[in-house]
């Protein structure tokens, strides 16, 4: 949409209708699906027209109809206001209107905008006001009967700042509203549409939604993650609901390699479409990194197991201890699988590239190996001191686990500063509370040993230079700052990569220079037809919610592949500042409700869950803080 005839996007009016519609304007509007020629769009932020002949009257009707679906009807002005606007439009198009009706429309829009209870009502009607104002001639022609309103079906989309920030695009205001209205189980159903591990995600998600929450700029973001957990907790308290069975069965079967979040999400979605699904898991426990990468004090095993069992009960078969060493799609095809999804995760720790790390010294361990051993019930004897290298959640999980195992002196070395640290704030704060020492701007250069046992690490201090390709400031060694740190154990936790290759010969799957699997960015298919890949083995170590999202998408892509259809592109709001709205009403400041955490003195006694959940009444109160910032857009 480069050639703007008219735009009121962001409230800034560009009107080229008198001249040629050629002036390209740099307005950040949504990106429409590839191949769609859009002549006009109406969204919460304004009206944008590229084709001078676009039918703004019908577009306004289409927008109001979509907006009405989103209005909750709770406060008196928003939904009834939209009803009234729709009735006025109908009246006008029936030839029973006059110019005063346009004035009434503007007055309703103004009052709905200033007096609605939530963000939706406060922001949704500006584009309608723009249409009436700047396309007044069209409305007057409609009144006179010189123009007609067409009954058209418009393409439409609904988003919100939180929804767009969520990798899986959960309807966050929707599920929060159900909690607010005391319907946690219905809320859970809505969550499960896009997040099949709600109790897991409600505990360990990195919640980018909360960073995008409009409320963050007012007081504190809504506790979105904890509200998801509240829905899951409430459901479990009532005995736990089950997942629906697929509506119909299909003949085709799909094989999935890896029962982590991506594999499980794809399995569930494919099963719901009616496919037979079998998951091959190399470990003795399903769940992938959610199972062997996250310690119990953050995610109790029974929560994960319950959710995996529900997926299993829909008819998904999970084969444990079933390592697929050499993938042959041809053979799998012979066995009757119509497609394969590779979701093996990234379970091999990266090397630090320093002297002594590959010598097999006693006391040198890899972070993911440590967490895996711990989660699989292996005994790990505590020593006096441990040094963990890295700044991500794996490093933090290792440190907090070591503190619980009985290590007296737990240290983290991170080469950048706290600002650049990728671990979540909750984890860092938890670690500091538990007495773990984090040394910033330090990096090991050599593992020290005696008789094959680790005795210490030689380190160098770092300073921060200019930002690198990751956008974070690059750490540079400070000359002459070397120092020695005595320690019994060194844990390397500086990132992971997938254990590849999975296949050989003709069917060799292409990998990137990063050691991850190469796939098509829309279909997630590898270079081998019928073989798809997703999750950490494609993205490199990422978050659980990103893995779930890929699993959901891969399921749709596999379905399209089997049916011989193309995957359709979706509207994208990546360039749009969704937080911005042209009108913001009065918002009562109200800090987020807090949950109770286990006393610090108790925590180190074992691996019991640290964080508590909301009691139902408190969850309802917290949910009541949601501003419901839905954004609607229609286009043709």
């Amino acid at each position, binding site marked *: 949409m480069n050639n703007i005839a008219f735009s009121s996007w962001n409230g800034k009016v560009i009107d080229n209708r008198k001249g040629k519609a050629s002036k390209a304007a740099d307005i950040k509007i949504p990106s429409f699906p590839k191949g769609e020629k859009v002549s006009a769009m109406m969204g919460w932020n304004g009206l944008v027209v590229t084709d001078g002949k676009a039918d703004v009257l019908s577009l306004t009707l289409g927008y109001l109809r979509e907006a009405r*679906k*989103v*209005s*909750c*009807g*709770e*406060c*008196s*002005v928003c*939904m*009834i*206001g939209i*009803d*009234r606007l729709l009735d006025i439009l109908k009246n006008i198009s029936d030839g029973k209107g006059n110019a005063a009706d346009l004035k009434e429309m503007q*007055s*309703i829009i103004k*009052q709905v905008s*200033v*007096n*609605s*209870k939530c963000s939706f009502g406060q922001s949704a009607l500006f584009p309608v006001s723009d249409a009436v104002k700047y396309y007044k001639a069209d409305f007057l022609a409609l009144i006179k009967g010189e123009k007609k309103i067409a009954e058209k079906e418009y393409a439409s989309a*609904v988003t919100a700042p939180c929804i767009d920030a969520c990798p899986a695009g959960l*309807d966050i*205001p*929707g599920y929060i*509203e*159900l909690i607010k*209205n*005391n*319907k946690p189980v*219905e809320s859970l159903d809505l969550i499960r549409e896009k997040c099949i591990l709600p109790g897991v995600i409600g505990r360990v998600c990195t919640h980018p939604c909360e960073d995008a929450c409009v409320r963050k700029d007012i007081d504190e973001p809504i506790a979105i993650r904890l509200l998801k957990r509240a829905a899951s907790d409430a459901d479990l308290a009532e005995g736990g609901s089950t997942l629906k069975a697929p509506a119909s069965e299909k003949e085709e079967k799909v094989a999935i390699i890896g029962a982590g979040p991506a594999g499980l999400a794809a399995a569930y979605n494919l099963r719901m479409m009616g496919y037979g699904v079998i998951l091959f898991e190399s470990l003795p426990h399903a769940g992938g990194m959610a199972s062997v990468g996250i310690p119990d004090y953050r995610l109790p095993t029974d929560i994960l197991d319950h959710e995996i069992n529900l997926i299993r009960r829909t008819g998904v078969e999970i084969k444990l201890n079933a390592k697929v060493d050499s993938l042959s799609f041809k053979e799998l095809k012979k066995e009757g699988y119509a497609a394969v999804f590779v979701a093996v995760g990234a379970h091999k720790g990266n090397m630090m590239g320093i002297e002594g790390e590959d010598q097999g010294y006693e006391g040198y361990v890899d972070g993911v190996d440590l967490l895996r051993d711990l989660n699989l019930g292996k005994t790990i004897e505590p020593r006096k001191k441990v040094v963990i290298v890295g700044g991500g959640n794996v490093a933090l999980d290792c440190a907090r686990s070591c503190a619980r195992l009985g290590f007296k002196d737990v240290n983290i070395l991170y080469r950048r500063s706290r600002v650049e640290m990728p671990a979540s704030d909750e984890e860092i704060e938890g670690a500091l509370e538990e007495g773990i020492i984090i040394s910033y701007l330090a990096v090991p250069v050599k593992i020290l040993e005696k008789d094959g046992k680790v005795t210490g690490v030689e380190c160098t201090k770092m300073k921060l230079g200019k930002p690198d390709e990751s956008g974070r400031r690059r750490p540079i060694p400070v000359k002459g700052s070397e120092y020695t740190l005595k320690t019994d154990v060194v844990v390397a936790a500086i990132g992971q990569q997938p254990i590849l290759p999975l296949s050989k010969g003709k069917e060799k799957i292409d990998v990137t220079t990063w050691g991850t699997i190469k796939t098509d960015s829309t279909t997630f298919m590898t270079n081998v037809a019928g073989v798809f890949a997703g999750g950490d083995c494609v993205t490199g170590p990422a978050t659980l919610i990103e893995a779930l999202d890929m699993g959901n998408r891969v399921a749709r892509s596999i379905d399209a592949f089997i049916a011989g259809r193309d995957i359709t592109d979706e509207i994208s709001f990546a360039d749009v500042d969704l937080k911005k709205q042209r009108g913001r*009403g*009065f918002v*009562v400041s109200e800090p987020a409700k807090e949950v109770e955490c286990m006393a610090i003195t108790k925590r180190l006694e074992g691996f019991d869950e640290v964080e508590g959940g909301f009691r139902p009444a408190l969850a309802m109160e917290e949910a009541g803080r949601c501003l419901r910032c*839905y954004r609607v857009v229609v286009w043709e």
Partner: protein
Amino acid sequence: MVTIKINDRKVKAEEGSTILENAQKLKIEIPTLCHHSDLSPFGACRLCSVEVKTNGKWQLASSCNTPVEEGMEIVTDSKNVYEGRKLAAELLYYKYPTTKAVRDVAEKAGVAVSKDEKAEGHDCILCGLCVRTCREIVGVNALTFQDRGPGRDIDEPKIEFDPNRCIGCGSCAYVCPTGYVKMEEEGAKRIIWDKVFKMVSCSVCGKRFAPEDQLRYISRQTGVPFSELAVCVDCR
């Protein structure tokens, strides 16, 4: 205590109290429809709107659920306030033209209310008084809002009734401003939301006084045996 300014009057207000509570203390009339002093504020009817100065700008705010803050400036009688209330009332009247409670507030807000229609409607205006009463006073949660929203395909929002939870106490009917929630009594039966309850007779005077389900609920909550509860208030 905090100091606030309402219509240019400086007054002391209790911390955490709402604008509406303070205005009422000062005998400033503010219309309400979804408000009840014993229930949590809801802010749905938008009739109690006042203007509040925030960051130097006057904004409409519902007085029932806005707590006062130190130095808060409030105006309850400006043109903007009256316009806001009038439109809210007008829209309610547009949707529920025959419901008396709505006609009354609309007329008071300056809306031309047609005398041609009779005030015989009993529409649910979604004020939420019944929902909040059932949850906050009775503690039963038999009533909930039906959620509208994207993908939920609900044309008109309404209140959902859970017959398995309802104890037949009638509080919802008592608090309903429009008569939408009906409660009928017929011999030994009480009917609310189409659910039929058996009434218990007082073991002393024999008068039917409460549904059995309600007494059983009270017995469960308090531990007082059912037989001891089967005495009406007059005979206790």
